[in-house]
């Protein structure tokens, strides 16, 4: 086994341990459960109401958007915050100090994020199968379609999360604005109300960003064909969806190594110590 392969498999173990540790930590577990419970409650409340133009329940219309949203929450926002946190607390520096440690760190983060995504999506899919009427009306292929979209979605969102996380010096500079940006993105990406009902500039912006296309892709898999009526151009635009998300995947895959390397290069014991002093001073 080459040194790099050894680091990748150590990284996979690292990711698995990190995920297991977070399942054992009450605050993290609480975060997963409460976060997913909110979606479940929303779906329960919308179980009876109908989207009149489409003849389906609101909960069935919303659910693909929920999957798109947790993708971006877990693999972009959550991952970016974690990378910035681990830069500050010295995890990264420690990985940098061992041979191929950064390779291990990245493969660990990819593993952990994929596991967290599988866990969250799994919980939601099980809950939705019970709550949402006709969720699987499109047949068994829809299950494959959802899995495919989740994997493809990870490819578009996860490298982006790594890149954004390594751009920021600490989680606080990322956290506040990041949350506002996430909120705007979710409202403006047509996940819970059709994009065609929004102002034109919002439509243009949303179509440049990945979240709208993740939602569209999920809807194309889970909604009846008739639901295409409220989409732009009355089409699922499969090629465009794959194209735009593919471009974001490439952007992330190109930027992430560059930014990760830049971040790693700047890490040193004294840089760490300086940050530690800043944090301690703020606490005091």
């Amino acid at each position, binding site marked *: *086994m*080459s*040194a*790099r392969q*050894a*680091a990748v*498999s*150590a990284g996979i*173990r*690292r990711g698995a*341990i*990190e995920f297991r*540790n*977070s399942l*054992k*930590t009450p605050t993290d577990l609480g975060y997963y459960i409460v976060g997913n419970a909110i979606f479940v409650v929303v779906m329960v409340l919308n179980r009876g109401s109908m989207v009149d133009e489409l003849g389906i329940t609101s909960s069935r219309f919303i659910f693909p958007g929920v999957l798109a949203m947790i993708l971006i929450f877990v693999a972009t926002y959550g991952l970016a915050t974690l990378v910035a946190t*681990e830069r500050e*607390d*010295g*995890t990264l*520096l*420690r990985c*940098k*100090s*061992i*041979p*191929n*440690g950064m390779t*291990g760190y990245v493969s660990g983060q990819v593993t952990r994020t994929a596991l967290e995504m599988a866990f969250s999506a799994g919980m939601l899919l099980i809950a939705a199968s019970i709550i949402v009427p006709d969720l699987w009306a499109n047949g068994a292929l829809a299950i494959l379609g959802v899995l495919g979209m989740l994997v493809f979605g990870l490819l578009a969102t996860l490298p982006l999360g790594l890149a954004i996380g390594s751009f920021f010096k600490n989680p606080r500079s990322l956290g506040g604005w990041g949350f506002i940006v996430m909120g705007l993105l979710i409202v403006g990406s047509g996940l819970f109300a059709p994009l065609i009902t929004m102002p034109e500039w919002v439509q243009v912006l949303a179509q440049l960003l990945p979240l709208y296309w993740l939602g569209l892709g999920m809807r194309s898999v889970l909604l009846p064909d008739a639901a295409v009526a409220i989409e732009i151009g009355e089409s699922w635009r499969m090629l465009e969806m794959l194209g735009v998300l593919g471009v974001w995947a490439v952007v992330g895959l190109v930027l992430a190594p560059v930014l990760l390397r830049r971040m790693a290069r700047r*890490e*040193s*014991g*004294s840089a*760490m*110590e300086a940050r*530690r002093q800043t944090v301690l001073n703020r606490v005091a």
Partner: protein
Amino acid sequence: MTADSEGTPVIDVRGLSMAYGPKRVLTEIDFTLAKGEVLALLGPNGAGKTTTIEILEGFRAPSGGSVSVLGADPISVNEQWRGRIGVVLQSWRDHGRWRVRELLQQFGSYYAPFSDEHRPRPYPVDELLRMVGLTELASSKVMSLSGGQRRRLDVAIGIVGRPEILFLDEPTVGFDPVARREFHDLVHRLSDLEGTSILLTTHDLSEAEKLADRIIILNNGRIAANGSADQLSREVAGTTEVRWMIDGQRHVHATTDGTAFVRELLAQHPDIHDLEVRRATLEDTYLAMVASHQAEQATPVLEEEGAK
């Protein structure tokens, strides 16, 4: 032959200089580290110790001079090189949720591809735990360890790859006396049994004297002294301070030959009183150095703040 063959130093530093903007941190540093040698960089805070060690670890590019660690320039090294050195970092709160044994296994596995018959890598985790005295805490979470226990874990992570050179930056900060003693034993064991070359920084003279084969005193980014503790006590601390009073006035004189000076003094001025003759110890010299360094530091800091 590789750089670690007998006789060739494992670290060779020539004319090393470092400046952050206009501020000079290191000026023309020269030193070597032989295989199996323990070298302490001693100096007050801000003397340039951490900068030096970070340059040698490959974490920082120097402004001038040449640096060779295991035959390579640390700033342009590959992962193979990194597999042969060990860095003990000051931990803070990273990996808090990991269990001690898992963490050592995790980091050890990166070194396995660099194993050879002379140095089987990584260290078996149980042996490592025993060496640093953490056997009982093997399944504890890192965040539950005390400061001294965490520091020993840092050392264990630093040596898990059975390094040929080990870098330790202020290794015993926050240790109680027992932990300090155990740590000293560990350092001796590494250098004696494993032939590990060790470079450590400290601002504590007595620690440098106990641990190191050789001490380099850094002051204001320059090497003020370089030698074994014995040599330094003779060379650096070779001066004798003579104090006396005459006509109500105090006089102080530093000389290399106290006896001769006093004989002369008494012959010329029979009416002196309050005569004190004191041989300066290495500690006196070092403390004087630290005090003058601090006095110099006090003014520039104000200027810098004014300039902002």
